[in-house]
């Protein structure tokens, strides 16, 4: 069978990931802001007897920058661009995408230009696709990843693709052209066009430079500095100016704006960032988000718990008794509790949070919040860009730490990640705070935990900002159009982000409850509990068995509360009577700050190295125990 390699590149938020999902049927997380794709995605489809391997690369504005994403894309393109590269453009904003297209073509890489979001663009523009094809002399395909329009035709075009010489090229300023002409004979790079390589050399591209001889590199460097002294302007700027000039001319030839009045969403977008209207709007959005979360989750939890009890009854435990007598009964009761724990934790708290987060992400509101919060973040040594990872962190720390990659400075990434790990509760921690502390110790207790976390965010931020060497970094972020979230995408994302709770946490909880039962049967539990009783009983004032919940909490946070339910059951009391309100408060507080879960530690290790991981994990453990002890001391006095 014929094999083909296809690579997707495009500007951030051009809809690469949506198109990837449409082409391959493989779901990837898509949000309405830039920088969602931080890792390579790859999938294979078979069409008309051809195996097409599709690779999705991170979004880049152009190939002229020096950001990590741009380096990744340049490296992928220059090493092996595959059979054809699809440049995905937002059809309503083709100028910048055309520049990216020029740069790719210039390197001699086979290109198909896909004008995505065409269904939205026709409302604003008349686009002459055929004319664009004639000018660029490459296939230009109108598509819509949202409605699947043109996607089959795009695939057919990929299969049919044969590399043809295109005589289209961007003509640069005469000085630059003279340099290019002089450089070309010095360049021998396999698979890449010499002209394109010469241009990239003049731009001092970090990926291209190692591919050529020192002679060519030196010559290019000399030319670039000569240009700068004679023109008083960097040659990069000059080259970019000619590219955009060309793109502007082509755009005017092929596209005409049909509507002039500003749409409602554009007006709303302006209002969302003007301080007078934007800040009240931000407060309203955050307030509605959190209050609806708390209201709905409470109702959902009791509904689900009741539904499960009335549905399952004690069928599981009697089933266990039938096949395994007393031990069988105890084991099956553990399984029963595990199911209940997962259902009442995951659906009301975790799933609901992801539905709300999905709606916020898809609406395109997040970048607006980023801009508004920029000043506040500066006090913590961050900029507004940190808001998105922190928000994602309320879902799960692992993707949140990945999302910090959009932040350019290492220092800021480390500060944000520490904040996320220590002071931003993940959805499982949220479930503990609301579902255990809030439920059994009162709203005030849950609120006081949030207050402690908020104080910690500022304390950690300000301290780290002071201690770590300052690296300046600046915000530059595209504001996507505001749009109506799609129910399908929100549902997909919620499932994709929650499935681990069912697939991994549930089996672990079942195994845990069985092991616990066995330990209990053989009287081994006390042996395990005893050594830790200084921490649990003396310092924190909690029942000794809670150490089991703490240990399980290192595996996964939501397991701690699940384990608590099982422990209570084995003690023969309902969870409400297992601990006092004060104890639930201390437990919730310790769990909220506590050591990161294994998955988080792994991603921290990968991104920041073992030293930082150990430092963050150790500090959070100590801080959690100290604050827990302090609360216990104060509460027992009161």
């Amino acid at each position, binding site marked *: 069978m014929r094999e083909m390699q296809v690579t997707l590149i495009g500007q951030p938020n051009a809809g690469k990931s949506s198109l990837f999902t449409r082409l391959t049927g493989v779901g990837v997380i898509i949000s309405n802001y830039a920088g969602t794709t931080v890792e390579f995605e790859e999938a294979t489809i078979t069409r008309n007897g051809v195996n097409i391997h599709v690779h999705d690369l991170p979004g880049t504005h152009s190939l002229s920058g020096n950001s990590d994403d741009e380096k990744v894309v340049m490296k992928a393109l220059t090493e092996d661009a595959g059979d054809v590269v699809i440049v995905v453009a937002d059809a309503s904003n083709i100028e910048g995408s055309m520049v990216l297209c020029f740069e790719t073509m210039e390197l001699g890489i086979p290109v198909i230009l896909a004008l995505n979001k065409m269904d939205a663009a026709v409302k604003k523009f008349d686009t002459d696709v055929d004319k664009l094809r004639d000018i660029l002399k490459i296939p230009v395909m109108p598509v819509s990843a949202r409605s699947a329009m043109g996607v089959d035709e795009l695939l057919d075009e990929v299969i049919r693709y044969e590399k043809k010489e295109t005589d289209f090229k961007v003509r640069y300023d005469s000085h630059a052209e003279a340099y290019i002409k002089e450089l070309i004979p010095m360049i021998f790079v396999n698979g890449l066009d010499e002209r394109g390589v010469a241009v990239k050399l003049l731009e001092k591209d970090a990926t291209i430079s190692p591919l050529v001889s020192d002679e060519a590199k030196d010559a290019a460097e000399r030319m670039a500095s000569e240009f700068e002294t004679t023109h008083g302007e960097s040659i990069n*700027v000059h080259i970019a100016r000619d590219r*955009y000039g060309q793109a502007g*001319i082509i755009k005017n030839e092929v596209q005409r704006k049909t509507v002039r009045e500003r749409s409602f969403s554009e007006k709303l977008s302006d209002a969302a960032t003007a301080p007078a209207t934007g800040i009240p709007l931000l407060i309203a959005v955050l307030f509605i988000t959190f209050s609806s979360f708390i209201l709905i989750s409470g109702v959902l939890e009791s509904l689900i718990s009741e539904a499960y009890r009335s549905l399952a009854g004690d069928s599981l435990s009697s089933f266990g008794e039938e096949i395994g007598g007393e031990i069988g009964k105890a084991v099956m009761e553990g399984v029963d509790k595990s199911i209940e724990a997962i259902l009442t934790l995951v659906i009301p708290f975790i799933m609901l949070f992801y539905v709300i987060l999905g709606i916020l992400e898809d609406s395109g509101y997040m970048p607006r919040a980023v801009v508004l919060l920029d000043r506040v973040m500066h006090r913590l040594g961050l900029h507004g860009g940190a808001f998105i990872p922190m928000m994602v962190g309320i879902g799960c720390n692992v993707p949140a730490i990945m999302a910090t990659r959009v932040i350019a400075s290492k220092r800021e990434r480390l500060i944000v990640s520490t904040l996320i790990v220590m002071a931003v509760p993940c959805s499982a921690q949220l479930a503990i705070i609301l579902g255990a502390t809030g439920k059994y110790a009162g709203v005030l207790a849950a609120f006081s935990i949030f207050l402690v976390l908020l104080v910690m965010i500022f304390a950690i931020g300000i301290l780290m900002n002071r201690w770590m060497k300052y690296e300046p970094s600046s915000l530059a972020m595209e504001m996507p159009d505001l749009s109506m979230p799609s129910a399908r995408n929100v549902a997909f994302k919620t499932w994709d982000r929650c499935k681990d709770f069912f697939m991994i946490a549930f089996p672990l909880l079942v195994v845990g409850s069985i092991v616990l039962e066995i330990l209990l049967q053989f009287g081994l539990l006390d042996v395990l509990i005893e050594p830790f009783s200084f921490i649990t009983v003396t310092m924190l004032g909690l029942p000794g068995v809670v150490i089991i919940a703490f240990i399980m909490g290192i595996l996964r946070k939501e397991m701690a509360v699940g384990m608590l339910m099982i422990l209570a059951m084995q003690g023969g009391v309902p969870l409400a009577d297992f601990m006092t309100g004060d104890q639930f408060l201390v437990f919730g507080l310790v769990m909220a700050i506590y050591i990161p879960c294994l998955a988080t530690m792994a991603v921290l290790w990968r991104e920041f190295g073992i030293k930082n991981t150990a430092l963050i994990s150790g500090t959070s453990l100590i801080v959690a125990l100290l604050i827990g002890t302090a609360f216990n001391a104060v509460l027992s006095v009161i």
Partner: protein
Amino acid sequence: MATGNREDYLLRILRLTDGEGVAKTTDIAALMNVSAASVTEMLRALAEDGSIVYEKYKGVSLTPEGLIQARRLRDKHQIAERFLMDILDKEQGAAHEEACRMEHILSDESAKNMCRIIGASDVSACEVCGTECIKKISGVQMNRLPPGTPGKISHLKCDDPEKIKKLVSIGFVPGRSVSLVNRTSNNGPMIFHLGESNIALDQDLASLVFVDAGT
């Protein structure tokens, strides 16, 4: 009386300050390859003309009139050089040298016509192409652009090439139209409309982009 030499000074000061900030006398002397004493003398004359502001021990900055004059000279130089190379097929070195002399004597009208012959698309930010340009604000930093006023990017200025690369890669490139949509707070990021997209930019990045407003 504006001699060629006097105009050369203006050009050097423009290169050193790029319309913003202050140039040191010693730097000018080094660039012109003359003694500091003769620089001081010329600077006094230029200050009398109203082209520059000269403060002893502090340095030299261009007045708005001086800036326009200097930029028009620079633009004329570029037009002449490109004309000589593109149309008359002159070698670059020779073209540059000849353009250095032409910049002083070329009339606005001739420069404009030469520009038309070259068919350059990128001279819209040029000081020659419109005596009407003089009425407009030219060379303001983008963060000082009044909201709603359209402008055209004229140049970028920063010592750090990484920042220039970043701006260029997002699309802040000379010749493109830009306008300020919103300023979020006093020192907070600003939102600019560029092409068909809205981009939030920190003030320190925005201040590196220079814009001719009202074009």
